[in-house]
């Protein structure tokens, strides 16, 4: 799409790899694998996240890999379930041993109630995994100081949360994400808490490089429609960012001419 010289085809570059889509999707909690595939397809996403878990020996389910075309999507395994750096590093190594490219969405969430990322353990794990050659995409609190530390450690993105995972509450951390975007030298991907296309659009309007959603797509009667809605929301927000939003003002500024009124002066 070409709009007055601004192209939506501007690409997202992470670790030297280019992506046309700025929407990443998670594959958890869908009612069926067919619903998940439909949402992925409609979203236009090129990066999808998966988790690693023990096989249920008594009732082995199909591997998620059967349902994801890895020629088409970059598989981004996460370290969900890790409570400290050691567990996260173990999961990342297992993902690589399973044949994945060395890309890892680093998640360290010791608290099961809010699932907030542990800044200390996340940084510790990032330092180890970067040294082991992983492209590390860290899920992180929206903390601009931590963002700098992670970037110094060599992470290839920053993934601050908008709100706790699965809450659909939108950009509750907006002002801090703004500072992270202003300071970052790597792509900023807003992850977690985005529940509506307008939330995704808002993040993109602010200058986020991408967003990641899962619950918003899985938690609806029509995941495919919601996938497309998020795709459009992300595109709208990106285009608005590239166009440049007008300044906010405290008083009215007429849009129509202030001359030629049908009245006596």
């Amino acid at each position: 799409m070409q709009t007055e010289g601004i192209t939506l085809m501007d690409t997202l570059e992470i670790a030297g790899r280019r992506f046309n889509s700025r929407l990443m999707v998670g594959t958890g909690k869908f009612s069926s694998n067919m619903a998940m595939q439909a949402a992925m397809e409609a979203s236009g996403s090129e990066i999808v996240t998966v988790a690693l878990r023990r096989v249920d020996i008594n009732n082995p389910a199909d591997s998620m890999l059967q349902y994801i075309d890895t020629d088409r999507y970059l598989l981004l395994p996460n370290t969900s379930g890790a409570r400290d750096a050691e567990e996260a590093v173990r999961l990342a190594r297992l993902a690589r041993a399973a044949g994945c490219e060395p890309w890892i969405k680093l998640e360290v969430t010791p608290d099961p109630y809010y699932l907030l990322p542990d800044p200390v353990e996340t940084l510790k794990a990032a330092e180890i995994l970067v040294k082991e050659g992983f492209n590390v995409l860290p899920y992180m609190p929206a903390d601009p100081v931590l963002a700098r530390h992670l970037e110094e450690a060599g992470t290839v993105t920053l993934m601050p949360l908008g709100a706790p995972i699965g809450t659909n509450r939108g950009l509750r951390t907006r002002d801090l994400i703004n500072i992270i975007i202003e300071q970052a030298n790597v792509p900023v991907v807003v992850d977690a808490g985005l529940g509506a296309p307008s939330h995704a659009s808002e993040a993109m309007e602010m200058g986020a490089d991408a967003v990641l959603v899962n619950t918003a797509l899985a938690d609806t009667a029509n995941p495919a429609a919601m996938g497309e809605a998020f795709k459009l929301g992300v595109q709208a927000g990106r285009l608005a960012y590239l166009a440049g939003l007008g300044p906010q003002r405290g008083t009215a500024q007429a849009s129509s001419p202030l001359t030629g009124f049908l009245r006596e002066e």
Partner: protein
Amino acid sequence: MNFQLNGQSHQTVAGTTIGSLLAELQLQPERVVLELNQVILNANEYREQQLKEGDKLEIIQFVGGG
């Protein structure tokens, strides 16, 4: 012979190889990743490896996640 499989006690006959265990459990080797006593196993090498009393084997796969 007793060993730990995915955190639970599991019985098998002595001399069972990891390859035959996977077959018994009807798991496709290319869809799982294995860790024996906290060491990740190389997919090309573990099939003939025999399990020992007290081993801790983890069989892990990809599931949906965000």
